[in-house]
């Protein structure tokens, strides 16, 4: 009799096409998401070898990384290299017959928001994309991770991936979150506790009461940043909330197939007594609203804290902290709430969904921004439309925010939305690396509500003051 299995074990086992003696597996891929930046060389490879896309019906493409978020982009993109990449994706999608959402389509958006929104992402699936934040889809109990361009080509040609199994890691968030604490604070706090390499070699399953209590959107925020913790993927077992979210979406199963799917999905949980190679437990009550101070996502502190000194660390981290403080223009001992902000960015695949916009708008309602610029970039055209319908767009605009079209925008600044050198940004995205949001730009990561609070006061702010 097979022993108890983790959720990861179950999904893995259901997708093994072939296993070599040394444990190298050929894993079947149910969904392949594609965007314009990491795919051109893969399609070029197919053309050069005369290969086809094996399962175009399981392949979904959308341009998101370098599209501008201002009107007129469906007619013309100024930056020539960006335009060539987007045009290449248009052509590749057409030539190879894959599902496609061009910028002119209201369903266009960030690939990790479009997949779940359209019902492409379902529990128990394997999902890959040439993008590290594919981890987002793990919120559905799907095994989802980023791959490189050579692997994109491999999946296009074979619908499989050569993989070795990772180890199992459990991250349990017990109890309840305190007011003002969100999914973003959970995921940042986990990285703060385990470090950016803490999950290397593992697939993380997030569990515990505080995770159960999250909405699907919050769960996506948590899994999204599994990669910042170094993990191959993050997973959350599907439950009634998952099934409710999926039901009725354009590509979700219907009728008898829905019933069959549901029967299988309900078996997707970690069995009692299954083995985890590493376990991290955090009390939900201990998590505070947090921000990052440095240039690594592990540089996390409660907003009530102060900028650390390099001597607070050891090993290679001492040098790294020195460099971070210098880059970020911060002094040890400075209170985090004294750090003045120039720009606020609300969006990205971490926090660009409707609930994120609602959370920010709730803080902003009737207030004005005290920063130089602030922008909201909805994660998809549909999120944007819904926010307009709910009156959120007007709240942002009245507060002084720019209301943009969907895309990755200032999360990585491959498009015209960028920070200038020294400009300091409160961002709801997932990476605070040097230059990530523009050369010399300084990024503090936080939740949408915290970013909204910073927009109103002009400095990093404890959102609980507004509650």
């Amino acid at each position, binding site marked *: 009799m097979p022993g108890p299995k983790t959720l990861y074990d179950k999904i893995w086992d259901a997708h093994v096409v072939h296993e070599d003696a040394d444990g190298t597996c050929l894993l079947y891929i149910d969904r392949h998401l594609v965007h314009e*930046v*990491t795919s051109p060389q893969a399609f070029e490879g197919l053309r050069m070898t005369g*290969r086809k896309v094996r399962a175009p019906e399981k392949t979904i493409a959308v341009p998101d990384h370098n599209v501008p978020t201002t009107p007129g982009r469906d007619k013309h993109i100024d930056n020539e290299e*960006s335009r060539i990449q987007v045009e290449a994706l248009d052509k590749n999608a057409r030539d190879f017959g894959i599902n496609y959402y061009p910028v002119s389509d209201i369903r266009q958006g960030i690939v990790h928001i479009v997949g779940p929104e359209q019902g492409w992402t379902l529990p128990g699936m394997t999902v890959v994309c040439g993008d590290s934040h594919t981890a987002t889809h793990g919120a559905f109990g799907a095994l989802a991770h*980023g791959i*490189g361009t*050579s692997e994109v080509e491999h999946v296009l040609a074979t619908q499989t991936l050569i993989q070795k199994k990772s180890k199992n890691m459990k991250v349990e968030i017990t109890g309840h979150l305190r007011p003002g604490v969100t999914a973003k604070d959970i995921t940042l706090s986990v990285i703060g506790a385990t470090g950016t390499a803490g999950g290397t070699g593992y697939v993380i399953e997030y569990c515990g009461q505080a995770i159960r209590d999250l909405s699907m959107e919050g769960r996506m925020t948590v899994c999204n940043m599994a990669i910042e913790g170094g993990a191959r993927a993050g997973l959350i077992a599907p439950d009634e909330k998952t099934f409710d979210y999926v039901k009725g979406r354009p590509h979700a199963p219907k009728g008898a197939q829905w019933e069959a799917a549901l029967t299988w999905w309900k078996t997707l949980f970690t069995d009692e007594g299954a083995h985890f190679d590493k376990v991290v437990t955090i009390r939900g009550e201990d998590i505070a609203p947090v921000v990052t101070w440095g240039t690594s996502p592990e540089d996390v502190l409660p907003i009530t804290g102060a900028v650390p000194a390099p001597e607070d660390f050891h090993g*290679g981290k001492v040098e790294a902290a020195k460099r971070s403080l210098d880059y970020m223009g911060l002094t040890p001992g400075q209170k985090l709430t004294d750090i003045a902000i120039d720009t606020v960015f609300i969006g990205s695949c971490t926090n660009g969904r409707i609930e994120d916009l609602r959370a920010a708008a709730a803080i902003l309602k009737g207030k004005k921004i005290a920063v130089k610029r602030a922008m909201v970039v909805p994660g998809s055209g549909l999120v944007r439309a819904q926010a307009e319908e709910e009156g959120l767009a007007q709240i942002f605009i009245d507060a002084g925010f720019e209301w943009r079209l969907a895309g990755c925008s200032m999360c990585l600044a*491959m498009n015209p939305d960028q920070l200038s050198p020294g400009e300091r940004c409160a961002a709801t995205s997932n990476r605070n690396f040097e230059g990530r949001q523009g050369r010399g730009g300084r990024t503090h990561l936080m939740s949408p509500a915290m970013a909204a609070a910073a927009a109103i006061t002009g400095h990093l702010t404890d959102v609980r003051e507004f509650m």
Partner: protein
Amino acid sequence: MDKFTTLTGIAAPMPLVNIDTDMIIPKQFLKTIKRSGLGKNLFDEMRYNADGSEIEGFVLNQPAYRDAQILVAGDNFGCGSSREHAPWALLDFGIRCVISTSFADIFYNNCFKNGILPVVLPQDAVEVLMEDARKGSNARMTVSLEDQTVTTSDGRSFGFEVDPFKKHCLVNGLDDIGLTLEKVTAIDSYERTAAQSRPWV
């Protein structure tokens, strides 16, 4: 893909931890639709001033390291974005081997697909190699994938582990896709079974 058997070359020391793929190749260079030509922008923001002039202190700008083929780096090398442009840029510059205590997962895999060998060694071994790399261009390090060893210029040797399948592909310069397509009947049969058991996919 070029084979990797044994490499003797100059090693550049980069003791920084958490060198991420945004540092290795900043996003403004990801707009290419080709794999080649990225070497001049490897570590762009650490290597050049805003006006395009070289930053003197940066290791790869120093005469001793301009022809480096090996990098010895701090923990968690290659974290962050999945961009394969990072190994493409390293390769285009001429780097064929990176040595660290740990690598981020996706970057590690991407290296093997491009003929670059990532070597994981314990902290004390990496420290010895870092010291050796600091000696500059007169000190040549040797990396043998066949023997799974790294040897310093003065003959100290360290053994490393590597996955046998990955080693096999790299030593022989094999294309993964070709290998997988040899198993196409297994894929066909998986698809037939899955169409029955999970028809909604």
